[in-house]
């Protein structure tokens, strides 16, 4: 299935590291402190092979921010964070003495924004480098167990491929890891690859 060469992966990694850098800049402007985001790995797999091991998910509950986007290719992008870690991060970003219980009331909207910043930064980096325009829906936030999330990803039969990015986020010494999952149909994956090829063709 997977027509991605090492060079394709390298190009995508560079795009997403630029996206991560932009997201870190936006977040640092909100929190007034250094924010570090890195994308240590990228993989493209068949959605039936996706499981809690590939996503490094454990038992707890996960917050999932999703946006549907369309353009030269269509995909659903889902950003996953462990809910308790995400709440701590949102708490740090709000810079107050709020308890976790108090934070819960702001969780929905604040997580939408955090996810929106990271997703938009990645999409805009893609748009800049591969020279295309994407449109996107507003972000949506749900909280579910790893099993529920994976079940939904697997049953999405129109989109047999998933691109999984592991994301490390550090704000004011608090560290968390998340996953950015792109659900892609075969034609969307082909279209993404052809854009990467076009880009590589210009520089080699």
């Amino acid at each position, binding site marked *: 299935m997977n027509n991605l060469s090492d060079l394709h992966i390298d190009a995508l990694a560079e795009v997403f590291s*630029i996206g991560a850098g932009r997201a870190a*800049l936006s977040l640092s402007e909100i929190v007034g402190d250094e924010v570090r985001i890195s994308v240590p790995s990228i993989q493209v797999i068949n959605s039936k092979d996706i499981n809690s091991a590939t996503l490094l998910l454990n038992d707890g509950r996960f917050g999932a921010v999703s946006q549907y986007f369309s353009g030269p290719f269509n995909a659903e992008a889902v950003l996953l964070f462990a809910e308790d870690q995400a709440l701590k991060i949102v708490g740090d970003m709000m810079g107050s003495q709020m308890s976790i219980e108090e934070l819960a009331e702001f969780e929905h909207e604040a997580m939408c924004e955090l996810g929106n910043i990271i997703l938009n930064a990645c999409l805009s980096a893609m748009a*800049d480098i591969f020279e295309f325009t994407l449109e996107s829906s507003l972000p949506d936030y749900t909280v579910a167990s790893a099993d529920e999330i994976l079940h939904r990803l697997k049953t999405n039969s129109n989109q047999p491929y998933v691109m999984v990015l592991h994301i490390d986020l550090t704000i004011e010494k608090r560290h968390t890891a998340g996953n950015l999952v792109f659900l892609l149909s075969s034609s969307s994956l082909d279209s993404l690859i052809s854009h990467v090829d076009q880009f590589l063709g210009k*520089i080699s």
Partner: protein
Amino acid sequence: MPVDNSIKKLLIVDDSKVSRMLIRTHILAQRPEWIISEAVCGEEAIALVDNDLPDYCTMDINMPGIQGTDAAEQILSKHPSIKTVIFSANIQETHQTRARSLGTILVAKPVTEKSIALTLDFFATSQ
């Protein structure tokens, strides 16, 4: 500004092959006569400059092993003549300050014609 047409040596330090290709392509489009070498991490760059001293260097920050800014600091303390530009997607204030303190500039990725123009301008004018 007079264009210096002499042959210069540039070292590109970046762990991403695509990023090195991108910088190389854009630089050669402007300065086809330049000699370009590459390193994939800070450690390799530190070893390379001792054997073959370049005139210029572009340095990524996030790489396996030591950070690009730390590598640049080590290289510049030994070879202060190498004019260096730090390339990074991360342009937060802390990195900007660090780059300035090393006598370098921070140029935002992605690598484009515009960022290469900034780089060449810095190489040509800085002392």
